[in-house]
């Protein structure tokens, strides 16, 4: 079902078009992801697992997890959470591995790549809050930037954040994430930044520093003088029996579905995790008119800000602390979840089981950095649980152990959009400066950014983060 009315959002939708799913005629909006159109039509099972034929739906909804592969116009293994709907599309449940024999030969790629190598001062990979801020500040210093994003629009995950930000005015406090995305996009110097959309950076070739990029099904190359990796993070999964049932989504995925695409994720939701994401998404689900049955949290106390927790409690949503998921059940998609209590040693207690009839379970147990490019480049990485997993070592200027490669945002350790923006600015400034660009304000702006980061990380909630960061710099 598509959301018809929303207290904050007005959905800009394409025209209504017809498409086909497993031979059945359906309607959707042109340009919305195929998975969103299917979900609105009540279809949650997108494929069958290769070996055991289990039903599978999407998990991340932003092109990371590959749980949503379907057959589209004869082509197998299409990520329908990001592939856009077109009129007359023929979409099919993918059984097993997908069949290439019915796909049309692609005349473009058979002629080979062979295009030239584009040169640029700084390549910024990822157009979220960190990447946009990096491009803006590098431009200010005088450096030319190529900003690459694999999506068809910039803004990253800001685009689904309907809540107002905290922090200082500089990080756009009291402005909603969705609006910050627009503000940052406006600030981009269009003369100085070449924005490449639908462009996935596939690899960093160490022998000549070239980036291999898939742009609209073509292989292209970019040779930057500096690289700022701002690829963000992906949602973690949780291990329990039947955790692959359709209807079990990352909390961010549910947020993407309802806030970006205007599709109702389901009727009754269990939220797993009472950190900020779990609390905020629970509230947003209720704003979209969806019933949140409960929030559970394995730790003995709520991890997110009290202001967010109070909002959902006031609306009558119970928060069970020291509870985790025992198992999920359902025939083709989620129907029921059994939760149980944990003792002080995080061991489940028999007899404390509670069954909840829900059709959606949102998993908000943290994010891990999308650091593949950093591994490829040979950056030194360190495992820091407080920052989400393997995280790159770097200097105060955000440069990794590989000269010329900088990081910013969640890929540099999972924090928040506010710190991502400041890290992005800092990386953009320093990368530009290392190429000799300076508008005369480098020193001042660099100091400012470093101080802002310190302020942002000064609260008691950030203690673990601070400890983690100490190990990196």
């Amino acid at each position, binding site marked *: 079902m598509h959301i018809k009315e929303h207290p904050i959002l007005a959905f800009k939708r394409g025209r209504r078009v017809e498409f086909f799913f497993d031979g059945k005629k359906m309607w959707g909006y042109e340009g919305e992801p195929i998975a969103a159109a299917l979900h609105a039509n009540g279809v949650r099972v997108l494929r069958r697992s290769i070996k055991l034929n289990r039903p599978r739906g999407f998990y991340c909804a932003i092109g990371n997890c590959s749980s949503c592969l379907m057959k589209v116009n004869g082509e197998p293994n299409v990520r329908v959470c990001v592939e856009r709907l077109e009129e007359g599309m023929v979409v099919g449940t993918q059984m097993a591995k997908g*069949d290439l024999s019915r*796909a*049309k*030969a*692609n005349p473009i790629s*058979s002629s080979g790549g*062979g295009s030239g190598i584009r040169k640029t001062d700084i390549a910024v990979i990822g157009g979220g809050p960190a990447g946009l801020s990096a491009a803006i500040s590098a431009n200010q210093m005088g450096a030319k930037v190529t900003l690459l994003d694999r999506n068809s629009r910039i803004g990253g995950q800001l685009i689904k954040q309907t809540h107002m930000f905290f922090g200082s005015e500089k990080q756009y406090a009291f402005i909603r994430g969705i609006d910050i995305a627009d503000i940052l996009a406006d600030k981009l110097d269009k003369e100085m930044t070449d924005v490449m959309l639908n462009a996935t950076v*596939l690899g960093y070739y160490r022998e000549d520093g070239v980036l291999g990029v898939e742009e609209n099904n073509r*292989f292209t190359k970019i040779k930057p003088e500096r690289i700022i990796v701002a690829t963000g993070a992906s949602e973690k999964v949780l291990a329990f029996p039947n955790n692959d049932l359709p209807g079990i989504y990352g909390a961010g995925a549910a947020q993407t579905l309802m806030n970006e695409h205007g599709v109702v994720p389901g009727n009754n939701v269990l939220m797993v995790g009472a950190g900020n994401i779990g609390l905020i998404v629970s509230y947003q689900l209720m704003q979209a008119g969806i019933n949140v049955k409960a929030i559970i949290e394995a730790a003995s106390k709520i991890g997110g800000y009290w202001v967010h927790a109070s909002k959902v409690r006031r609306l009558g949503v119970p928060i069970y602390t020291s509870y985790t998921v025992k198992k999920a059940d359902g025939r083709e998609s989620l129907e029921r979840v059994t939760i149980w209590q944990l003792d002080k040693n995080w061991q489940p207690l028999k007899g404390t089981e509670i069954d909840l009839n829900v059709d959606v379970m949102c998993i908000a147990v943290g994010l891990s950095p999308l650091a593949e490019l950093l591994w490829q480049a040979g950056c030194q990485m360190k495992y820091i649980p407080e920052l989400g997993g393997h995280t790159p070592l770097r200097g105060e200027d955000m440069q990794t152990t590989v000269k010329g490669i900088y990081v910013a945002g969640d890929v540099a350790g999972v924090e928040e959009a506010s710190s991502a923006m400041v890290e992005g600015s800092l990386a953009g400034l320093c990368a530009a400066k290392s190429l000799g660009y300076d508008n005369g304000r480098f020193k001042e702006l660099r100091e400012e950014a470093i101080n802002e980061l310190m302020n942002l990380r000064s609260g008691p909630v950030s203690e673990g983060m601070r400890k983690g960061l100490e190990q990196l710099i």
Partner: protein
Amino acid sequence: MKKSGEVVIIGGGISGLSTAYNLARLGCKDVVLLEKESLYSGATGRCGAGVRQQFGLEINCRLAKGACEILENLNELLDYERDIELKQGGYLWLLTTDEEVKLYKKNVQLQNNLGIESRLITVEEALEIVPYLNPEGIKACTFHQKDGHVNPFQVSQAYAEAAKRLGVEINTFTEVTDIKVKNNHIVEVITDKGKIATNKVLNAAGAFAKHIGEMAGVKLPLKPERHQILATEPVEPLLGPMVISTDLACLQEPQGSFIMSYSDPDEPEGVNISSSWRFMEEMAKRVCTVLPILSNIKVVRQWAGNYTMTPDAAPILGSLPGVEGFYFAAGFSGHGFMLGPMTGVLMAEHILGKETTISIDKLDIGRFERGELMREPAVS
């Protein structure tokens, strides 16, 4: 780590592991294997996973046939339960010039005489085997059904587990830094983890075999050379055999992924495992010409490994007359994995002073000085 060993094997790839197992099987249990990284992390784990018997040199045909017979029974022989993914879908060799057709006709004759049932086939017959083949420019093909694919990780792991069960000590992340020779006899191997007294050392160090040879004062005519490769997403079975020519090699693994590579004649000598975008572009162009249906498939990974070339593209198996106790299994010129199961049998027999199942006399290192080169014509 042991302080001494009857035989010390340098290299944890297929050659070292299968020799270790065969030594233990033949009763020599005091074997120490040294690997500077993780097991089969070099050329074995980086190879294209193809196995074939279509060679142009009698000794290579014999080695390959022996290796294939072992692989067909590997689970039983090594008491290994997991699937080694042996898929005998054949090798379809595409011949594009009259000279090639002439040469491969001769090769097929040789192979048939040795009991390898390869055959020269027409383009029409080839299209029955691979309907997606672009026949343009192809004059004829050779085909041998028993060639195909096997998983290098599973095969190597099977040998490693079997060797360990028989008492072989395997040390990973242990780098050999020197080899001590006294009065023309091997006496000791020095590693970064300690010393091992021994009188017998097998150099099965792949691309690093030349370097290991130098430690004992031996110059080996080996040239490591990078070969690049890529893998695609898995799809339902489309391609039975490995399609191979002077331009490329491409097979579909049993799990569905396509693996493909080509040899670059301009590749400089040296150990190198980095990937290039040139390879990605050129490979895509070549494979889409031969198998146009693959223009729709997505590449998921590219990597590189090293061939260790000899002047005649045939391996060096045997011992060194000048240094007593120094043995070689090196210079496989791109076929170390597929010949590996047989290499192990022969080297174990040779090290223990037994008569080898197949004579390896002609593969000794002395052939280069004597000028008796083997010249394998069917190397791609």
